């Protein structure tokens, strides 16, 4: 009898004690793109909640891609229920800033030594607009060269020493293409926006807009970079098929060289599953000082409430910290945004076992940030570039013509002055 009363009383007291704790809990809604990222995004949230019991993370159903994610968030913002934290494609960050949906992080970063926490100035620059920090890079990637080592060897190449210039690479692709009618020499993915075209320009040491504001395609070097895409088809054996079709051909062992974001490395590992030897190499260069494009998603805070902002800042720091970044890299093939993740305690042993995953991080020193076109027509310009690549691939225009058409088109779409 007594004992039961005591238990009841204890239960009552603990309920009373628990109540104020529950009231203090902050709930953050988090929204990201790509359904196939849901698992690791949730993984980070779970780990975070374990370390921070007072903050609850609620994941919203992911959007199919960056563009649709942005549309949804703008709509939610108009209805007054935008998520607290949003992972935006870093090239779309300007769209949020233009709509005053996101505030600079100055208030939260004040007095914080970001460098000591493993954030390099280059990494932080990925999510700045005109030098102002609007978010933190959540994931980051550069495009790399994937190769089928057996086909490379058969064509007389050396998988340990893959070519570093485009001329040699295209020659190797031509040799692979000559191996048989069912074998495609190379495939340079045109992508879903102008990112892969930006990479060709970067290989030639160019940004889409040069320092004196000239459109890169109007320069001789820029036209040559765009001309690479024509050479891939004319000389390297690339066929004008969709990216998915090329990927399937790679998995089937019928494609020699494949160029795309390093994020593809994980599906390569699962799909090829040791059936043949493959690897990754750095992106070839067109000029000595040629770089590579880089991209990824930026984590931004949309919440206005100071308490929610503080909690969201904790989440951003956690997700971009060494532990979470190690987890992201191992689950995606992206490269870490935090230097702290590269050490022997984190990714060191993993990279030793999976050399194909490290290539992207190795070329980070020559990475250009994901260029966002000024003004309101960025996405339209992206599409124009993509269409022109498609026209080149299908022999509708030659590269020189394409470069001058693009220059005209972009000129009209850029803001005046």
């Amino acid at each position, binding site marked *: 009898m007594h004992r039961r009363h005591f238990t009841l009383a204890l239960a009552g007291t603990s309920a009373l004690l628990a109540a104020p704790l529950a009231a203090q809990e902050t709930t953050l809604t988090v929204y990201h793109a790509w359904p196939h990222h849901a698992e690791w995004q949730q993984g980070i949230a779970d780990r975070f909640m374990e370390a921070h019991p007072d903050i609850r993370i609620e994941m919203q159903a992911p959007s199919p891609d960056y563009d649709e994610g942005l549309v949804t968030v703008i709509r939610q913002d108009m209805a007054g229920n935008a998520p607290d934290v949003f992972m935006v494609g870093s090239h779309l960050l300007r769209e949020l800033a233009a709509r005053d949906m996101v505030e600079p992080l100055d208030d939260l970063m004040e007095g914080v030594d970001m460098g000591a926490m493993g954030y390099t100035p280059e990494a932080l620059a990925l999510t700045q607009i005109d030098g102002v920090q609007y978010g933190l890079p959540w994931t980051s990637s550069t495009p790399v060269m994937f190769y089928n080592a057996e086909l490379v060897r058969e064509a007389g190449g050396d998988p340990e020493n893959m070519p570093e210039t485009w001329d040699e690479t295209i020659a190797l692709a031509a040799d692979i293409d000559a191996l048989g009618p069912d074998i495609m020499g190379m495939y340079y993915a045109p992508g879903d926006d102008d990112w892969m075209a930006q990479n060709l320009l970067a290989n030639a040491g160019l940004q889409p807009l040069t320092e004196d504001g000239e459109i890169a395609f109007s320069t001789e070097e820029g036209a040559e970079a765009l001309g690479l895409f024509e050479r891939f088809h004319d000389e390297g054996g690339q066929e004008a098929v*969709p990216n998915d079709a090329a990927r399937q051909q790679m998995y089937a062992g019928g494609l020699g060289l494949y160029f795309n974001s390093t994020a593809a490395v994980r599906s390569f590992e699962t799909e090829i599953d040791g059936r043949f030897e493959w690897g990754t190499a750095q992106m070839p260069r067109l000029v000595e000082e040629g770089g590579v494009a880089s991209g990824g998603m930026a984590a931004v805070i949309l919440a206005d409430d100071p308490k929610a902002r503080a909690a969201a800042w904790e989440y951003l720091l956690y997700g971009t910290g060494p532990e979470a970044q190690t987890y992201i890299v191992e689950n995606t093939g992206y490269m870490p945004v935090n230097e702290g993740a590269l050490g022997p305690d984190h990714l060191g042993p993993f990279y030793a076992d999976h050399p194909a995953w490290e290539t992207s991080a190795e070329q980070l020193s020559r990475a250009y940030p994901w260029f966002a076109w000024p003004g309101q027509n960025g996405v339209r310009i992206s*599409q124009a570039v993509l*269409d022109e690549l498609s026209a080149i*691939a299908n022999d509708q225009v030659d590269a020189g013509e394409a470069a001058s058409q693009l220059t005209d088109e972009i000129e009209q779409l850029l803001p005046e002055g």
Partner: protein
Amino acid sequence: MTGSTADLRARRRAGLLLAAPAALLLALLLFLPSSGVLVLSLTDYRFGMPGASWIGLENYARMLADDRIRQSLGNTALYAAIVAPVSILLALWLAVLIEATGRLGGFFRTVFFLPVTATLVAMATAWEVVLHPSFGMVNVALAASGLEKERFLSDPSLALYTLAFIGVWKMVGYNVLLFVAGLSTIPKDLYEAAAIDGADRGWSRFAMVTWPMLAPVTLFVTVITLIRTVSEFETIAVLTNGGPNGATEMVLYTLYQEAFRYFDIGLASALAVCFLGIVAGASILNIVLFDRRSRHG
């Protein structure tokens, strides 16, 4: 006398009362948003931006000057010009055949109606596999018979025709069903009378009885099919994204891109107004023609 006038008035009032809720909903859910679109088409509003200014008819001028949109309109017209007549004539032919098969009629009706019931997005994915440039069934068959493989969805000179083929496949079942329904309403004695007059089989029977009796159904099917073909969206969104290089852009897809990818609501609204005009025109034509037929026939 006075009693029947009061009666008439009461009936009118009841009719008005009964029609009112639907009319109100129609006004709220259809006419109000549509006029909103009309207003937006006169502004330079961008999705999510705080303000907008009046720019009059500039969006319409931009629309007419835009090569992309002209290409999209041309593609839509070509697509409709292929899909509508083919799917209507094919459906008519199949319906007449199915009616003549007797016991197997139910089976064939189901077979041809299946594409209508299936989720188009899932079906489009199946088409993607069938038409794969290297492993697709069609290309394997082409290669086996010594022909060149084709890039059905990524060759700019083929992609629109591939979509048109899929469009016919999708549209034909529904039209067959409508024609079968139409056929079943033709009185048997008409055929008997025609037989007595010598039109007892084949073409003459079809031309003298079936075709004239099916005219109202055919008119309806034509209008419905035209509206559905100019509103094509799903196959583009799933299979080609309007590519390669705009070769499969059609009005609704372009509209969606302008509004929700480029955030150019003004231009998208202008396009929507034109689209609405075309569809409304087709519907009004339908009603007028129907009305005339039922009055004379």
